[in-house]
């Protein structure tokens, strides 16, 4: 659809673009990214024919753009620069109707049925038909932008060039406009080339990304190949981190700010832990990075408060999320800053152990209820049962862990727990084999993220050794406590 071949050029004698080549296929959306002043808008001007390249050629549908007449080109390609309401405002309908300019000819240029249909369709697609009689200047920025996009769609060309179509819009309007453009691409094979400021939006909506740096192509391809941490940091000269998007297989970046924080020591000590009647509590005055399988705020995140709450055997599990939220609020914990677990074990049986390590102290907290212990290799043909009996394990580390260290730490802790069950000869009552855990065990690793980065957390790493030893010993004692309680 669009082919740019060895294009160089710029304003006057200052070269801005240097030997740029790329292609966009029909029905694809290409995002042009790059820092300010890298030549994104200049490239768009060259593609649209507003600026002539000093060397190189631009082809639309296999034909050089300079061989098209203005009107022919306008039927093939629509360019939407950043627009604002003009000094003299027109009605929405008149503004959209102007998109039909290249399709009209002759002295009186009569308005045909297909012109009317294209205008009405474009207004429907963008949702601006409801205010077609309104003056443009009285619409909000988002509505105005939708009107301009409607004008572009009414032009009925197959190639759409956009310059930051969602600039200055709030997220609802950004989403609305890009969803709409994306729909045209997917359903009607529209080809779109758009300059983006926002890397995340480009990644989400584009099939391909062209990353520019100093007037050259730095990378070109599908988003996950182009948007790589190191490359973005290099091109934009800013610290960022790439994360997975929760729904789409598209990378999303987060800025890593270089903040100078108050030189306050961020340290967790035994004083941060308290055993109360209804729950075991761990409160920190700064947030820790946490990976857990808790009831409340599971997954990866940053939290300051942690509770392991004791409930009765007959606790109704159906409404657990709502009930737990209510409980947190009632007890004065901020729900967004608290991780919560549940157990049927009395808090008095909880084990808190402290270990010294080269990087800092590690705390292991375990409550163990093994009435429902199971051998995980023998559960495949069993029905689910609701009996509450749980081993809850917390590992709180004064240290800095990478994501893989967190995951490896979880594995190491699980292995140590299983070993403790084995050592204590906890049996699966149905299969009569040694149990590996209970159906509802929960695990949490929290780290202060201070000090040297620890990349790995396997059994032979500094942190892994402490986790292994700590979880094994604490689980052992917790099981013994539980058994004592049962005997009484």
């Amino acid at each position, binding site marked *: 659809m669009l082919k740019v071949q060895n294009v160089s050029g710029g304003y006057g004698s200052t070269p801005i673009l240097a030997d740029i080549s790329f292609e966009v296929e029909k029905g694809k959306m290409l995002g042009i990214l790059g820092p300010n002043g890298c030549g994104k808008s200049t490239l768009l*001007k060259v593609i*649209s*024919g*507003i600026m002539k390249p000093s060397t190189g050629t631009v082809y639309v549908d296999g034909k050089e753009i300079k061989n098209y007449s*203005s*009107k*022919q*080109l*306008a*039927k093939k*390609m*629509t*360019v*939407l*620069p950043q*627009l604002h309401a*003009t*000094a*003299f*405002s*027109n*009605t929405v*309908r*008149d503004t959209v109707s*102007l*998109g039909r*300019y*290249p399709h*009209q000819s002759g002295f009186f*240029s009569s308005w045909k049925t297909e012109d009317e249909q294209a205008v009405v369709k474009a207004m429907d697609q963008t949702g601006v038909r409801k205010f077609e*009689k309104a*003056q443009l200047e*009285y619409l909000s920025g988002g509505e105005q932008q939708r009107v*301009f996009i409607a*004008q572009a769609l009414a*032009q009925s060309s197959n190639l759409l*060039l956009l310059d930051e179509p969602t600039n200055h819009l709030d997220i609802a309007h950004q989403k609305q406009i890009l969803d709409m453009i994306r729909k045209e691409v997917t359903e009607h094979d529209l080809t779109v080339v758009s300059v983006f400021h926002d890397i995340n939006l480009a990644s989400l909506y584009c099939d391909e990304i062209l990353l520019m740096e100093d007037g050259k192509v730095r990378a070109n391809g599908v988003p996950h190949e182009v948007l790589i941490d190191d490359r973005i940091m290099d091109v934009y000269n800013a610290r960022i981190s790439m994360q997975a998007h929760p729904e789409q297989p598209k990378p999303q970046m987060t800025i890593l700010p270089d903040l100078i924080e108050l030189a306050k020591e961020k340290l967790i000590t035994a004083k941060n832990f308290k055993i109360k009647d209804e729950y075991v509590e761990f409160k920190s005055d700064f947030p820790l990075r946490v990976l857990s399988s808790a009831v409340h705020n599971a997954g990866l995140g940053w939290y300051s408060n942690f509770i392991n709450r004791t409930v009765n055997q007959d606790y109704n599990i159906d409404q657990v999320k709502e009930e737990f939220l209510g409980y947190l609020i009632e007890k004065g914990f901020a729900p967004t800053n608290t991780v919560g677990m549940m157990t049927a074990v009395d808090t008095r049986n909880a084990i808190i152990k402290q270990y010294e390590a080269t990087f800092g102290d590690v705390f292991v907290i375990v409550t163990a209820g093994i009435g429902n212990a199971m051998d995980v290799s023998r559960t495949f043909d069993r029905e689910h049962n609701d009996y509450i009996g749980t081993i809850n394990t917390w590992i709180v580390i004064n240290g800095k862990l990478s994501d893989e260290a967190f995951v490896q730490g979880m594995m190491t802790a699980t292995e140590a727990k299983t070993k403790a069950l084995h050592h204590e000869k906890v049996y699966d009552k149905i299969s009569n084999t040694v149990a590996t855990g209970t159906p509802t065990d929960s695990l949490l690793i929290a780290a202060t993220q201070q000090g040297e980065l620890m990349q790995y957390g396997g059994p032979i790493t500094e942190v892994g050794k402490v986790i292994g030893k700590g979880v094994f010993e604490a689980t052992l004692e917790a099981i013994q406590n539980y058994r004592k309680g049962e005997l009484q």
Partner: protein
Amino acid sequence: MKGKLFFAYISSIGLLLISIWLGVSIGTAEVPFSTLWDKETNESAYNILWSIRMPRVILAGLVGASLAIAGAAFQGLLKNPLADPYTLGISSGASVGAVATIFFGLSLPIIGTYTLPFVGMICAFLTMILVLTFARLVDRTMKMETLILTGVIFSSFLGSCISLMIALTGEQLREIMGWLLGSVSMRGWPYVQMIIPFVMIGTIILWLNRRELNAMMYGDERAQSLGVNVKKSKYAILAGGSMLTGAAVAVSGTIGFVGLVVPHMTRMLWGADHRHLLILSFFNGASLLIICDLVSRTIISPSELPIGVITAFIGAPVFSFIFYKQRKSRG
């Protein structure tokens, strides 16, 4: 929407016809309109109408129409509500020619008494060439800012030439000032004949670019991408508007306000679509200047006021009223 436009054309044409009727009928000597085609009843009245009032009314109408349509086109092209036909400095060129004619007492052979409008038109034409050449030299794409600044440069330079001649003149001062304030009196049919070709050509050029003007409201880039040959249209609109302005100033002096306000009033009443704005401005500019001329020659009769005083005197309150009503109704 269609009905509104139909009403716009009907009322504008109606207003123009009424203005002509009033302009011809009212004066120091009251004569019925029917005298126009009734020579037998009153021959002297017939002569007054045909040789004095009719050319005056038509000249006022043509000048008003030219300034209004040129103003509408320049405002649209420059995307600037403050633009008027005088923004580009063409009028200053015409004024320099006219003032120089009075100052030096020029009288060209053959055309004799019509030396002044002739020199005015020549100077307007030369100024237009200079302004466009200079603007193009500065910036090949002739952006709106370039054009406005070029106009400012030429206007102030030519304005100082006029001031210089005013400062050095003695007995012609009154004549020069009178001309600068603008008037359509004592001109007669030759002036009408002189301006008509320019009005026709200029108006047709602008009207042919009505849709291009609409497109250029959204900027040169968007216009180009819509398929407009921006450079060609710009030249055409500038040439057309300058032609109308130069001719109007050459025959009547620098009559202010019409070219600024009539397009605004028309736009407020019936919208900014140049397909209708240009023609509606043309009609209403004609009506406004005919009425202003009527007032200028009757209000302190038998003396006359300069028409430029009246245009602002009548135009400003009317403009304010429409402006107020329109802003109010839109909240």
